[in-house]
């Protein structure tokens, strides 16, 4: 049973603009927010997940995106160092919760920006990390030191896809779903070199955050609006669960951003 961490969207809203999706002129519809989040929560429960909730805090609207809180491997939790001051106050709240839940908290140096699982996803025992918009490549090095694993750093070049989890989604079979144009040519080459069985997502579906999916063995929970991708995944034997995510897309997030794995991986090594 996968253990997950979510945060109820009680204080969620578009209160600042820190990515191209956000516009304070285009606020979130609160009842719809609640309904969409509940839809995700219930879906994950129905798929047999052990879902934990971190209490939301006023004035931290993006706390709902728990994937950005940090990276959990085994019993270690590496909290994020958010690039934007608007989100910085989230980090100690998540660290407190994780510590109470029995995790060892390993902070990165303050000057290295890192946005957790949003920019760090395992494919097998290799950790793929995005950099430039939110996370510094120097933080990748520090994470590699802490976890003693191979960290592949890839540069993100499209500001709409500012975290790696918005354009890259590892699958259970060792492959991945991705939107290649979100990476620079070196990043694309690196991913092609290291990840077999890639499924390319077309731009229109990538723009619906189709890559921002929660993969639970053969079950994939993803935002609706990706018929081509769902067909490809179906042919690979995955069962897709599309959910409406329009209100979270307004902040540049969807299913995966709203979910953190506890842990993402049991161990960084292959043993």
């Amino acid at each position: 049973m996968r253990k997950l961490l979510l945060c109820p969207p009680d204080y969620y809203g578009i209160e600042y603009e820190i990515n191209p999706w956000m516009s304070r002129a285009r606020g979130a519809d609160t009842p719809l927010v609640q309904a969409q989040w509940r839809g995700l929560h219930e879906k994950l429960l129905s798929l047999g997940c052990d879902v934990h909730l971190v209490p939301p805090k006023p004035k931290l609207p993006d706390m709902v995106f728990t994937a950005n809180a940090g990276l959990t491997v085994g019993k270690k939790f590496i909290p994020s160092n958010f690039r934007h001051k608007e989100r910085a106050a989230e980090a100690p709240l998540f660290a407190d919760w994780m510590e109470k839940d029995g995790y060892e908290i390993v902070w990165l140096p303050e000057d290295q920006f890192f946005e957790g699982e949003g920019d760090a996803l395992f494919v097998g025992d290799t950790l793929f990390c995005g950099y430039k918009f939110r996370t510094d490549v120097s933080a990748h090095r520090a994470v590699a030191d802490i976890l003693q694993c191979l960290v592949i750093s890839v540069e993100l070049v499209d500001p709409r896809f500012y975290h790696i989890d918005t354009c890259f989604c590892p699958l259970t079979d060792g492959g991945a779903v991705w939107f290649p144009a979100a990476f620079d040519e070196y990043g694309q080459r690196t991913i092609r070199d290291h990840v077999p069985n890639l499924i390319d997502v077309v731009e229109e579906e990538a723009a619906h955050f189709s890559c921002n999916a929660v993969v639970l063995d053969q079950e994939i929970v993803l935002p609706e609006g990706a018929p081509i991708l769902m067909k490809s995944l179906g042919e690979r034997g995955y069962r897709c669960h599309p959910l409406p995510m329009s209100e979270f897309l307004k902040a540049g997030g969807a299913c995966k951003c709203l979910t953190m794995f506890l842990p993402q991986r049991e161990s960084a090594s292959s043993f």
Partner: protein
Amino acid sequence: MRTSGNWAVEILPDKRVGAGPAPRFNWRGSVPWLGSPMPSETIELRGHIIDSLILPKVLDQIIARGGTFKIGEIKIGENRTDQSFARIEVTAPSADALDELILRLRQHGAEVMEKRSIQLAASPADGVYPQGFYVTTNQQTFVQLEDREIEVEPALMDSAIVVDRAAKKATATKFYSVKKGMEVVVGHHGIRVVPLQRSTARADVFEFMASNVSIEKPKTAVIREMAREFKRARDEKGKILVVAGPAIVHTGAAEHFEKLIKWGFVNLLFAGNALAAHDIENALFGTSLGVYLEEGSLADEGTQNHMRAINAVRGAGGIRQAVASGLLKSGIMYTCVQNGVDFVLAGSIRDDGPLPDVITDAVEAQKAMRAKIGGVTIAMMMGTMLHSIAVGNLLPATVKTLCVDINPGVVTKLTDRGSFQAVGLVTDIEPFLRELTDCMEANR
């Protein structure tokens, strides 16, 4: 008498001096003492930079933005979880370009190394360097003195660097000029040597002469290109130095050389006693080593002629005086005096005479030559091994150096002794100079 020359273009090895990319001779390279230094920074990259293609990306970006790099150290992780490391010296065309480049490289994790200052030690006695002194090369060199980088002047090989902290000056200094208590650079910290830039322009005469196929090139094309380079140097107010041996006179090439002097292609002449003695012998008696240059026949008691020539000049008080008094009316030395071409004659043990102008103290001769080589852009060395090597040792690597000799070993020796930038032409001097002057006459 004209010698039918056996022409060949000597192939020189592409020598490496120190670490980094092999310096290539660039005929159109920067002018010594006038060229502006290329700013540089040292960066370090760490992490899984090979698997992530960060290292190739960084190197590509340096090149794409007009910079160059030199990998000082690289360690590649053995196991998949091991991180790799690279220390890279990045050079850009200007300080602004370097700042912008470094800013971009930082995004990919490059950390800029703090520049280490040089270490200094006092000279223990006059003429003695302190232990562990840094030995200079003939390449452009900079030292980091606290927070600023200063150029070592001149670019002189086989010297130590004396630093005047108050004046913020660093000077390549020979043994005989160092005084007790002077501060000298020791160790290797804070020293940056700038290799000759690799030319990205069309391969010119010196580019292809250094290539493996140069033997196949037509000699006429080579000389034509050289003539153009001399013309360019003269027109751009560069200084042309000629180092010449007496073979110029023996082979009957003096008349061509005199034309080069008259046309303004020679600004400075370094030679020994013999060139001047045989040139003056020829001017006064029509012989060189007793042989009539017009006919190739031996003069009666001709072997005494050079002694009589030397005596005449000694009687006049020197070469300039001999010209002024009307004693000397032709020849290379006469043409030099008449055209205001400065010369230094350096003596050796076997010299007859010598002529009063010859400096017989080797250290004084070296000082006199060093005092005059500032601003030299082209050095042409013809028919003299020892003078070529001696002068080669005084020249910065940026001086375009051409060595013409019938003996291929001369060029090899010159390059083996540090003047790696020299390119060679193996031929008799007379046909070489004849063809060179023909080319120059055509477009002077």
